[in-house]
């Protein structure tokens, strides 16, 4: 038993001395739990917020105004009601300009409350929803959130409108009787107070199986779901062969690219430790030659890896990589260059292969999580969404989506590839500075 205890003690001592192993055991999962916890309702954030929603209200109805003011005040959506034209003027949206706004990728979805959204003679509320589903999950959640926001905020107005309509059709006296009878029937079957039903309107009882749930706003939402008509129109990506695979291939490809390039950059340590670096530098070779060779090797390896992954996407999932291949190749090259810069900066700041790989694993998982490789960034709390934009993964995924989903040309992808170049250059500058001062050579 003493032997076993001593051996356990030995393992703990070795583990504790391996700081990378300690970090990977505690820090990486803790950080990921923190991020995922924030997304799925933990302490850090909660529900999605700040989703950009283009919006026009063309209706003068009270309900339309109520919906607009509700959406204006909710944190879930960031309402955009105008765009900047070529002359720099802020112009309110019309139906055409709001569609254009979605098509050019300025926002993923738009809500239009048309003139005839709700009139004195209409029974339900009619809304129009334009979207670019380059992220299916995002779209489903936006639609769900939109309905939930509208439903939870305005049921009483809607119910009152229904009661008003019954009185209009049947007359005040008969309409009032009808409403009271309806309330009585609901009361009988659902076991709630009739006066309460009349006060609240005919909300929420239809789909409930138990009397205990009658007051819940969830049931109200369900009841109204059928009444509010959301006419959705997909504006972009209708021709995409395999939307799911097209959306996800870029993010996953980038994550694995970062892993392979980090491992390759960390080989600088192996070469140094084995004495190969010394042997190479005893030949007519400079340190700059070694660094450039590593950079170019890793970039080319990354380009080949991404091309193979996208080609596999073409073979197995029918992803259309050839219709915009030139721009796809450009994003691939720049993503690979930026990933290489990341791998090299890790090598520059680490002292051992284990450190580089450990730190790399941590950063790659974090970047993939917050950069949108696994799920859309709008899930994240606002402050993490800001951080997302500092990651290579975010801009690479954006670039791949622009090229594969939107079919964007060079001019359209210029800001995205500009960001990739910028991030790559900053990281490169840091790593060159560090290589000059570090002891890798």
């Amino acid at each position, binding site marked *: 038993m003493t032997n076993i205890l001593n051996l356990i003690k030995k393992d703990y001592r070795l583990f504790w001395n391996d700081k990378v192993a300690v970090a990977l055991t505690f820090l990486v999962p803790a950080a990921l739990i923190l991020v995922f916890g924030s997304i799925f309702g933990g302490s850090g954030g909660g529900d999605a917020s700040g989703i950009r929603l283009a919006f026009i209200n063309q209706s003068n109805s009270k309900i339309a105004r109520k919906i607009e003011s509700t959406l204006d005040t909710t944190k879930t959506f960031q309402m955009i009601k105008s765009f900047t034209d070529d002359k720099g003027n802020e112009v309110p949206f019309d139906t055409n300009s709001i569609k254009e706004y979605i098509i050019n990728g300025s926002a993923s979805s738009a809500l239009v409350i048309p003139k005839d959204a709700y009139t004195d003679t209409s029974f339900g509320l009619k809304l129009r929803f334009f979207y670019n589903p380059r992220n299916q999950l995002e779209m489903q959640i936006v639609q769900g959130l939109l309905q939930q926001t509208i439903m939870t905020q305005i049921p009483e107005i809607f119910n009152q409108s229904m009661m008003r309509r019954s009185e209009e059709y049947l007359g005040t006296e008969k309409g009032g009787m009808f409403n009271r009878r309806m309330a009585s029937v609901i009361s009988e079957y659902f076991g709630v107070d009739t006066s309460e039903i009349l006060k609240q309107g005919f909300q929420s009882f239809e789909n409930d199986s138990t009397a205990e749930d009658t007051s819940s706003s969830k049931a109200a939402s369900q009841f109204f779901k059928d009444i509010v008509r959301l006419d959705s129109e997909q504006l972009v990506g209708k021709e995409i062969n395999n939307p799911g695979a097209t959306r996800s291939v870029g993010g996953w490809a980038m994550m694995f690219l970062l892993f392979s390039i980090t491992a390759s950059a960390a080989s600088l340590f192996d070469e140094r*430790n*084995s*004495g190969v670096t*010394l042997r190479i*530098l*005893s*030949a*007519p*070779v*400079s340190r700059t030659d070694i660094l450039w060779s590593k950079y170019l090797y890793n970039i080319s390896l990354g380009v080949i890896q991404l091309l193979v992954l996208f080609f596999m996407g073409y073979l197995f999932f029918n992803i259309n990589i050839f219709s915009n291949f030139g721009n796809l190749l450009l994003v691939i090259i720049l993503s690979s260059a930026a990933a290489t810069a990341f791998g090299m900066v890790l090598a520059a700041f680490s002292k051992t292969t284990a450190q580089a790989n450990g730190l790399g694993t941590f950063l790659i998982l974090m970047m993939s999580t917050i950069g949108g490789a696994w799920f859309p960034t709008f899930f994240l709390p606002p402050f993490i969404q800001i951080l997302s934009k500092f990651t290579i993964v975010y801009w690479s995924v954006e670039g791949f989506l622009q090229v594969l989903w939107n079919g964007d040309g060079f001019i359209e992808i210029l800001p995205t590839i500009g960001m990739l170049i910028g991030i790559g250059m900053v990281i490169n500058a840091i790593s060159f500075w560090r290589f000059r001062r570090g002891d890798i050579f």
Partner: protein
Amino acid sequence: MIAIKNVTKKFPSTTALDNISLEIKEKEFFGLLGPNGAGKSTLMNILIGYLDADEGEVSINGQKMNTVAFALRKKIGLVPQSLALYDEITAKENLEIFGSLYGLDKKDLRYIIADKLKMVGLFDRKKDKVKTFSGGMKRRLNLAASLLHNPEIILCDEPTVGIDPQSRNAIFDYLQSLNDEGKTIIYTTHYMEEAERLCSRIAIIDFGHIISVGTLGELLQKLDYKQTISIIKNPFTEKYLSLFSSFGEIIDEQDKYELQPSDGLILSDFFRKVEEKGISYTFINFSKPTLEALFLHLTGRSLRD
């Protein structure tokens, strides 16, 4: 000729070389003998242009050597202390990679590689991955990789560490033949036997200082005595260490004690005492003093300390 003038190299925690000056002649087999951490490898790294000296200067045939003297590096071949090879590829592929760094013609390189592999006895294993080689085979390949460009000067930084005697002897023989062909060889070691066997001139280095330079004979003349009494180490002789130490200083070596006789030792007295104790004469030998004894004499420490 290699001239090292007042070279100093400092690292954050230590001064590896402190104002060192040496001259190494053409075609010389020059030994740099010192314990681990003496500064030997740092000096080699400056000689190959891997490191720059903080102060002082190194020149080879009048040309200054530093980290940007790329042309000069073609004249030098470094046999590194570590096995600087790629384990996952074959011996031939390793040599192709390292040979290509010297801009050798592909066709020429093929012949050179075959020649060097034959020379170190690895031609039959050229297509085998290095990871399948024994330590001795790797050492030999390590040497071959340094000679592909036919350098005038060969820097050997402890090239026989951790290998079997057979491979060590093969490397010695080959280095000797290269020296006979006219190559200048600088050989660092902390094994005095290697320096004694191979080097025509030796510098003893310790804590970044050159303590003494000369031929083996010149160096040993610095000792007060010309003979050493070796006593074979066994339980019987160990009992009488105090007796032996009354005749001089005892150095504890791996398999023997070396007695450095005190001034005025009378041999008959020594043997009479040995006989009285019943110590067999087969345990006692007379030999020339070694560099180990000189190092101890000069530094007060053993080479292996």
